[in-house]
């Protein structure tokens, strides 16, 4: 028997009417999210990622399209009848209830026997490391603790899928990094499908099995983190995820002449856009061999960033290229502002798109 997908969206569209005008927040999204997968919806604010998640949860009925959970059409099923739970951006804990009552809420609504509620809530509080704080009110707790209460409140119901709407947005950097690892651990332990909405590319890259990069109501690319980073499908993805250098021009016979040098684009002719990640580029003073892509430029800016140096290099045609150089063996800067340098990289690190 073929395994059913946890969540399927089929050409889902969401339209709103604001000030008498129809606005499409989601313009036709099709997704299959597998059982047990850590799936991220990544994109800038207003890209439709939260609306997409709210349609999975059942808070927004789609204007068009189908939502399926485990093969069942739930497009018109209200949120309280859907076997998915959500962790809200602001946690949305019940302020008048203790931690215990917050976590037990879903089980009580489903008329779970008292004994089982006690056992499952206790276990869940242990998983999120909140044992001993059962009687606290949400507002007596730190942001990180509230976050874990929200997580426990959703997970204790053992939903088919857990939806997380920018759950770490309100936490500071250190806590956020700790929670990222914590979330991955919990997901492995409970084996539930996670759908994670974020605008933070690092978060998405660190945690996800697969990422859907969204822009303007559409999915631009749907792939694993490595693929999204190394092989961005569109200029938007290349620009949104990490730092990218874009070089555009007309290629002739597999070579793009640019900035006093050449970019190798084997087998291509006509207009192309080439993406190169800053950390793939080597900076040097000698002209590199003909098997490498190489361009000439002048160092415009040098920034020391601890683990690496960042160079901004201006090419002859005014295009600017960013280069990251690891501070691996010594921290000496190899080029100074105003130096004339060669930038080179292997052909395999050029990602070429038709333009």
């Amino acid at each position: 028997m073929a395994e059913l997908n946890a969540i399927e969206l089929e050409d889902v569209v969401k339209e709103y009417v604001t000030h008498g005008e129809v606005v499409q927040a989601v313009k036709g999204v099709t997704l299959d999210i597998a059982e047990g997968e850590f799936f991220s919806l990544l994109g800038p604010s207003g890209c439709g990622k939260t609306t997409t998640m709210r349609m999975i949860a059942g808070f927004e009925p789609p204007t068009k399209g189908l939502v399926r959970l485990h093969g069942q059409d739930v497009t018109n099923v209200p949120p309280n009848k859907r076997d998915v739970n959500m962790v809200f951006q602001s946690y949305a804990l019940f302020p008048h209830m203790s931690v215990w009552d917050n976590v037990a809420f879903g089980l009580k609504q489903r008329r779970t026997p008292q004994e089982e509620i006690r056992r499952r809530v206790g276990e869940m509080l242990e998983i999120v490391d909140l044992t001993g704080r059962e009687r606290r009110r949400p507002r007596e707790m730190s942001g990180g603790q509230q976050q874990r209460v929200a997580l426990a409140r959703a997970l204790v119901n053992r939903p088919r899928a857990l939806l997380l709407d920018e759950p770490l947005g309100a936490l500071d950097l250190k806590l956020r990094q700790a929670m990222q690892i914590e979330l991955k651990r919990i997901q492995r332990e409970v084996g539930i499908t996670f759908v994670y909405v974020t605008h933070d590319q690092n978060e998405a890259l660190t945690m996800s099995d697969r990422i859907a990069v969204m822009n303007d109501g559409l999915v631009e690319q749907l792939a694993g983190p490595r693929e999204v980073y190394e092989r961005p499908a569109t200029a938007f993805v290349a620009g949104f995820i990490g730092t990218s250098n874009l070089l555009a021009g007309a290629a002739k016979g597999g070579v793009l002449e640019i900035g006093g040098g050449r970019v190798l684009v084997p087998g291509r002719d006509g207009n192309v856009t080439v993406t190169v990640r800053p950390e793939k580029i080597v900076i040097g003073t000698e002209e590199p061999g003909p098997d490498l892509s190489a361009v000439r430029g002048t160092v415009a800016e040098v920034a020391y960033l601890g683990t690496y140096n960042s160079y901004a290099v201006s090419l002859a045609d005014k295009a600017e290229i960013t280069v990251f150089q690891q501070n691996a063996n010594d921290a000496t800067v190899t080029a100074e502002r105003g130096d004339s340098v060669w930038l080179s990289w292997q052909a395999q690190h050029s990602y070429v798109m038709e333009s």
Partner: protein
Amino acid sequence: MRRLTPYLLALPGWLWLAIFLVVPMAAMASVSLQTGNAYDGYAMTFSFSNYADAIGRYSTQMVRSILYGGLATAAMLVIGYPVAYWIAFKGGTRKSVYLFLLLLPFFVSFVLRTIAWNFLLSDNGILFGTLKGWGLLPADFHVLATTLAVVGGLTYNFLPFMILPIYVSLERVDPRIVEAAQDLYATRAAAFRRVVLPLSLPGVFAGVLMTFVPATADPLNAQILGGTGNTMIGNIIQTEYLTNLDYPTASALSFTLMAVLLVGIFAYARALGTENVLEAAAR
């Protein structure tokens, strides 16, 4: 000196309370224990029997006042809660318009509004007279001078004081909390009962307080809409003070009413769970 500063800054408030609350109350308490008559004047005799006499004579009106006040408060809660709920959750961008409409009647004086009801409800007036003329109502139909008229008048006059505090508490309920409840398998009704209602209780508490106390003590509605058979304690106190010039009896009745109301409020706070109410109100 620095440690005293906050207290000194609060001084105007304390003075206000002393001059306008403590002093008059003490004076009234003293008057309530005096004996004498309006011509020869009253003298302090520590006559605690004033209380027993006053309560004995006017217990009917006292009980009636509490009953009418309670009925009107219950009616206001039943009418006011849904109105507050609707404005808070469905009012959208027009919330302030609805609140303004709610307060609009207050631009007309309390007495005038109540007299207008007398006019509307009179046996052969503009409304019932017309309906009787068309044969839609029996000729002996009347509303004025009944319990309904007085309780209705109280309900009408104090309704905004019920709606506003409930509205304020509902307005502060984050809609995402309601969504969270629905996400956790609660039906709309269950989400209301378990989440919205408990979070609005501080508003209900304040609303009941702000309506039950003045409605119970109000003399005007009974006077204008109640006829002779619906006299409330407010009317008695007014008559004793202004017509009979029996200041001790009026003062004793005032204090008795206050005591009854205070006891009622504390019992009510206990029943609702003061701890929860105060805690939620503090947020």
